[in-house]
């Protein structure tokens, strides 16, 4: 029987400053999600909203290993990935609101946020499609001879689509500096993981593509940090791709407004009891990495930033009508 190529042998540990930095990102994501659901519920903003609540830890710990010029490809549920990578709040919110001040002048919307300066280079609404393009971005870095890496984020459901398999195979054959990060939140839309996935751990799929595959607790910042650190180092050193499966849980329905009746109530309650944000917060205090006052101050500052971004978005202008036909091609062609 084939054995899994293990990652996690030369893992680095996150020092105190890094842990605090990870927590700051997690709190930002959690509070931002709170605000987004509130604004959509109030009817002040109409957008499809896919809550990343419960998955804060994964991109926060991954991003702690990345530089500004490393890139991420994410999906419709990707506000946590974007915020963790440093997409500024005001342009993110303005894009979610479809305003001209948004990252994409309002023409992409929440499912297609692009902010190259912070490395958020692609957000796709198509399941599985972050991966083939991540390969191309990584190919360019390799040709450039740079040490930049690309993260492809995707869900458990996306590991069943052809693009996943084509992409892992090519990345391995070409030894691309790309890290495939599967956020296994146990559901794909309304379908439970087991009902649609023929393998108990997605990381095992790495065996077929001769790349390291590892499953980590996606709610444990230090475990995610260590796995990502090793994968990023391998990629920077020209040793090729890694598949990381971070097991987590989606706290709300697939999309805002979904009643989540299909979710197992006990399973959900148990997962929410292990909410990664307060757990990590308590750990930081217990271990003396931060004080209650310090964390409260960080959180309060983030709350102010989020509120100001919401106001910026809501008070910004819609794109002017001439934007309708702009950006189809470099030159304007009717």
């Amino acid at each position: 029987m084939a054995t899994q190529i293990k990652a996690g042998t030369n893992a680095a540990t996150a020092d105190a400053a890094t842990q605090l930095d990870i927590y700051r990102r997690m709190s930002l994501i959690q509070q931002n999600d709170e605000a987004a659901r509130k604004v959509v519920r109030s009817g002040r903003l109409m957008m499809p909203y896919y809550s990343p609540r419960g998955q804060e830890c994964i991109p926060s710990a991954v991003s702690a290993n990345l530089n500004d010029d490393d890139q991420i490809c994410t999906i419709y549920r990707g506000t946590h990935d974007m915020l963790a990578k440093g997409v500024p709040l005001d342009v993110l919110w303005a894009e979610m609101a479809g305003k001209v001040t948004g990252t994409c002048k309002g023409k992409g919307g929440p499912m297609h946020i692009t902010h190259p300066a912070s490395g958020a280079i692609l957000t796709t609404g198509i399941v599985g499609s972050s991966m083939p393009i991540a390969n191309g971005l990584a190919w360019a870095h390799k040709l450039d001879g740079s040490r930049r890496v690309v993260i492809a984020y995707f869900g458990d459901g996306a590991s069943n689509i052809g693009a996943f398999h084509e992409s892992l195979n090519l990345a391995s054959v070409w030894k691309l500096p790309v890290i495939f990060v599967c956020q296994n939140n146990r559901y794909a839309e309304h379908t439970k993981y087991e009902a649609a996935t023929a393998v108990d751990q997605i990381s095992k799929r790495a065996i077929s593509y001769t790349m390291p595959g590892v499953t980590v607790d996606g709610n444990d910042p230090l475990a995610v940090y260590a796995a990502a650190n090793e994968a990023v180092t391998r990629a920077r050193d020209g040793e090729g791709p890694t598949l990381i499966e971070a097991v987590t849980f989606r706290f709300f329905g697939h999309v805002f407004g979904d009643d989540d009746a299909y979710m197992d109530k006990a399973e959900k309650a148990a997962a929410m009891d292990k909410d990664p944000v307060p757990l990590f917060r308590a750990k930081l205090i217990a271990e003396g990495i931060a004080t209650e006052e310090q964390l409260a101050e960080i959180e309060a500052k983030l709350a102010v930033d989020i509120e100001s971004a919401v106001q910026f978005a809501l008070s910004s202008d819609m794109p002017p009508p001439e934007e309708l036909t702009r950006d189809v091609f470099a030159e304007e062609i009717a």
Partner: protein
Amino acid sequence: MANRSKITIIQAINEAIAQAMAADDKILVLGEDVADREGGGVVGVTRGLSTRFGDDRVRSTPIAEQAIMGAAIGAAINGYKPVAEIMLMNFTTVAMDMIVNHAAKLRYMSGGQTTVPIVIRMMTGAGIASGGQHSDFLEAWFAHTAGIKVVAPTNAADAKGLMLSAIADPDPVMFIECSRAYGNSCEVPEVGEPIPIGKASVVQEGTDVTIVSYSEIFQRAIAAAKELEKDGVSVELIDLRTIAPWDRETVIASVRKTGRAVIAHEAVRQFGVGAEIAATLQEDLWGELKAPVKRLGAPYTSVPFSQGLEPLFIVSVQQIVEAARATIGTAAAPVAMGIN
């Protein structure tokens, strides 16, 4: 300099890519079997390129069309200019998400921040007994998708010039090569000059009827025009060359002059490129048309394999001749024009 008379479309495309790669090291080639170790392409279009420019820039890929297109798109976003081969146009069907949802839309959806300057080369065409899944002209699908340009050269000189423009273009360009016509040769400048995308070529001026076509069917339009000339019919021949964005100005100006138009293409007639052109002509020239615009294309079927049927699928010279005659037959005074 070697004595050089005529070269084929295969050689012309090869020369164009080599010329562009020599001038700009950001240009890459990828696709199934494109490198020399794998034979330099199934018909040899990319032959010699990996030897000359290196295996990093000319890469054979797994048989994975989504992965090929994704690699091209991502590299393009990060500053490279990939020329990706999808071996046959029908195989775009398994990469439609990458082409339509991503390559075509990323400029727009990102508000102009991420752009996808790629060329997608494909061969296709009926007439070589390849059957229903290896022969389709699918240009109308892509022409209907905002954000993709579509070109389809008919001769080697245009193939070279259009390929140079396609590579230089800042947006995705589908480059359709007709397998039947690959061996057609003509005089081609050794150092290619770009032929602008979006510009049709008025290959022959005439006064009675305009025939618009592209790709190999245009060769049939040329033959039809010779036939019609024997009857004294003066044909204006337009090779569209680019399907999206198509050269409305040139076509409209011509039909304004002749008052009659026949559009001929290989793709299925129903909902084809001919329908778009015909609709535009009646919108813009209503009252100036001397006859209803004629559209010729394939019947609404898959491409048949049998040699008893396949030739019936492709628009023939005779059909073009008859369509042109029909437009003139409905004219006010055909006899006065010396024909009947």
